[in-house]
């Protein structure tokens, strides 16, 4: 018998602190598998965010740092410039990246910083109890939009992949999802490509992964996967928005 699937070497044996069915866990695994595929476990440095993934340094079996809220791309910039032969990645939520950390991510992309950003978009602030994020959908109920997000008050959610793809320093920008096994396989390819872009010195690379927050969405884990397909993907179209190896999208 041959092993068809086993846990990645680049993950530790720690039990994840995520809620049951939260797809942060799937995304961690895909990042770890990309590091395995590159043979880069001993040369990778990750930067954990503030948010539910704050403990990511316990879960990845690589060197890790933890940055102040939204500042992971700035910390990663420092690490990469001091140690340019390392693979450096940030792992950030949508509150972290698209709200308080908007300046850091935009300027990391503008500078063409040779880092890889994994952007977990679950359309809410998970860790703090489910407040509205810049990515919360119009009509979505959160603790700070109890009647649903209103466009008149808050505008429409921010589509980060499209914005990042516009920056000249960006080598790769893609949006993927992990709501079923087929999409998980596609997400894996995109994450791997985003690490390869860094290794090839092509520029900044970001993969936005649509993710669930069953706890704060008030859904079962399975309902949450379905909501990604029915409600999130229509507003956040999946696809590769820029790939420097193939010319602009």
């Amino acid at each position, binding site marked *: 018998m041959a092993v068809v699937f086993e846990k*990645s070497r680049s993950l530790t044996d720690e039990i994840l602190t995520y809620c049951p069915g939260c797809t942060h866990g799937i995304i961690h695994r895909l990042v770890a598998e990309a590091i395995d595929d590159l043979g880069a476990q001993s040369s990778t440095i990750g930067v954990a965010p503030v948010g539910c993934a704050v403990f990511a340094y316990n879960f990845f079996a690589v060197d890790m740092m933890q940055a102040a809220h939204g500042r992971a791309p700035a910390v990663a910039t420092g690490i990469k410039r001091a140690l340019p032969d390392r693979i450096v990645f940030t792992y950030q939520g949508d509150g972290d990246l698209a709200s308080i950390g908007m300046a850091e991510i935009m300027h990391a992309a503008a500078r063409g910083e040779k880092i890889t950003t994994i952007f977990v978009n679950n359309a809410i602030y998970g860790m703090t109890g489910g407040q509205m994020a810049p990515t919360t959908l119009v009509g979505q109920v959160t603790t700070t939009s109890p009647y649903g997000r209103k466009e008149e008050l808050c505008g429409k959610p921010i589509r980060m992949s499209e914005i990042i793809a516009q920056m000249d320093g960006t080598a790769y920008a893609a949006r993927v999802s992990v709501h079923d096994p087929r999409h998980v396989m596609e997400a894996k390819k995109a994450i791997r490509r985003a690490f390869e872009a860094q290794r090839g010195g092509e520029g900044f690379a970001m993969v936005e992964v649509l993710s669930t927050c069953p706890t704060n969405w008030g859904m079962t884990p399975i309902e949450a996967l379905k909501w990604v397909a029915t409600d999130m993907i229509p507003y956040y179209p999946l696809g590769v928005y820029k790939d420097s190896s193939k010319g602009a999208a």
Partner: protein
Amino acid sequence: MAKLTILSDRCKGCGLCVEVCPKKVLGFDKKSLNAKGYRPASAIAPENCVGCAFCARMCPDCVITVER
């Protein structure tokens, strides 16, 4: 015939593996609880497993190993 190894103590009973299995191999053992108090997934019809690893790829907690 494929072989599943389920590390029940890591399982959080979320049911994603049960949902995506095309062969209805997985279910919940109604009689057991794990150390964390979750009802772990288990193979209720292991003979039907084709080793596609859909379950393992959807499990957020890396509970399942698949051999074929």
